[in-house]
């Protein structure tokens, strides 16, 4: 089962194998984190899932459909919002729909009602330069949401934010995920962040990167910052650090 899954995905660049035999799954409505040290091939795996790279072997399945090496099905969001400065926020958000062949006007009408939901009401006709960093990230997320059939890949989207803003945006994100029925695959190297927001965590480690552990976080959400002080949290953290260290 699994809404989105990879089966034995392996990818090398030249002689260098970056990820090997990666099989992960993301169920509907779940938030799953991919935790790994830098250089463990997190981004390569993301690019395979989004279809930008074609893996050497293995498959990527979305709702049972083979989307290996086919871009346009799942999109991602990075730390950089990558909003285009020369379009209004509305046009930025609607652009993926236009790329998929929708009429510009139609695409705008489809995007417009979601602005309020994402806390962006009133910014439709502004340019990205006029928005705050947090708003730009939300606009980028809205764009990702509009073009990716219920799945979002997030590559360290909040790592530039300070702790307080971060926990606020975590709360917001978990809330909106439920409202719009979004499933999320989340890349991070921040162990605390992963434990706070994930349903499950995959540990990606080694060279080439392999999945060395899978941990289910069995705690009620939303989890506040106080949770980080509990013995349960420490236990999770200890296990993750050990998994990361074992594979070194």
């Amino acid at each position, binding site marked *: 089962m699994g809404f989105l899954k990879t089966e034995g995905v392996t990818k090398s660049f030249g002689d260098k194998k970056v990820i090997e035999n990666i099989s992960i799954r993301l169920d509907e409505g779940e938030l799953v984190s991919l935790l790994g040290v830098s250089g463990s091939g997190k981004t390569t795996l993301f690019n395979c899932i989004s279809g930008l790279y074609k893996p050497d072997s293995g498959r990527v399945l979305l709702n049972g459909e083979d989307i290996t090496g086919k*871009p346009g099905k799942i*999109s991602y969001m990075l730390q950089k919002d990558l909003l*285009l400065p020369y379009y209004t926020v509305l046009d930025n958000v609607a652009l993926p729909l*236009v790329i998929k062949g929708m009429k510009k006007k139609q695409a705008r009408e489809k995007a417009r009602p979601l602005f309020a939901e994402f806390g962006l009401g009133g910014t439709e006709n502004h340019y990205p330069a*006029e928005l705050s960093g947090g708003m730009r990230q939300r606009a980028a997320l809205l764009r990702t949401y509009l073009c990716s059939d219920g799945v979002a890949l997030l590559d360290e989207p909040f790592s530039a934010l300070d702790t307080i803003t971060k926990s606020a945006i975590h709360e917001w994100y978990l809330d909106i995920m439920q409202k719009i029925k979004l499933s999320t695959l989340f890349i991070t190297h921040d162990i605390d962040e992963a434990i706070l927001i994930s349903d499950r965590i995959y540990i990606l480690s080694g060279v080439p990167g392999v999945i060395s552990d899978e941990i289910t976080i069995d705690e009620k959400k939303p989890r506040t910052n106080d949770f980080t002080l509990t013995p349960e949290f420490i236990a999770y953290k200890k296990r993750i650090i050990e998994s990361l260290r074992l594979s070194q």
Partner: protein
Amino acid sequence: MTRKYQNITSKLAPVVSIFSVLLLWFALCEGEVVPAYMLPSPIAVGKAFVNDFPILMQHAAVTLQEAIYGLLLGIVLAFVIATLMDRFPFLYKAVYPLLVISQTIPTIAIAPLLVLWMGFSMAPKITLVVVTTFFPITVSLLDGYRSVDADAVSLMRSMGAKRIQIFRYIKLPGALTQFFSGLKVSASYAVVGAVISEWLGGFKGLGVYMTRVKKAYAFDKMFSVIIFISVISLLLMLLIAVIKRLCTPWERIKDERSQTE
């Protein structure tokens, strides 16, 4: 309050400086420091302009036509070259040196050749304007295409964008700002290029008028046509600035921001 004051002074500064130069010129002539037959006074130049106004307008129409046709063709040529160079990296490597070399050839040296090849019609003038104007536009377009964030291009690809869509939705609008700065430079070359080519053969145009009044040692008319040419160039640049403003509305926000900060 202080900002308003700063605004006024910054707007006043160029007016004051231009007016001072005029005043100095006037003083030099009135004080007979320079003999009037060598440096006519601004008033004499103004009179010459008014007297020859209808003739100047006829000539200007021709020159402006050459400049604008040349500029438009230059834009088209630059667009084709820059786009192909951006699309095919080997073409970039092959053509770029040629473009640079083409710019080291002095305009004034090829103008007579063009006249020999194409005759006294408008063709050699327009060609010369194209040659002088396409380069700044090509280079600015190339830079503009390259300034696009590679991550943004990847993101669009992940959304299923085809190459042509990436060009249409990211590269082209992304290059607009740079394109216009190149165009502004080219516009100032265009009028001068047309005038230079008219010096070397032709029946109409401000360059032709210039050679005529030069032969007659009519310094006042010389001066009036020189100033007239620079005014035309300035107006053309202004026109482009207006078009730029209309085409790149997001730049306005950036300007406003930098002003308030």
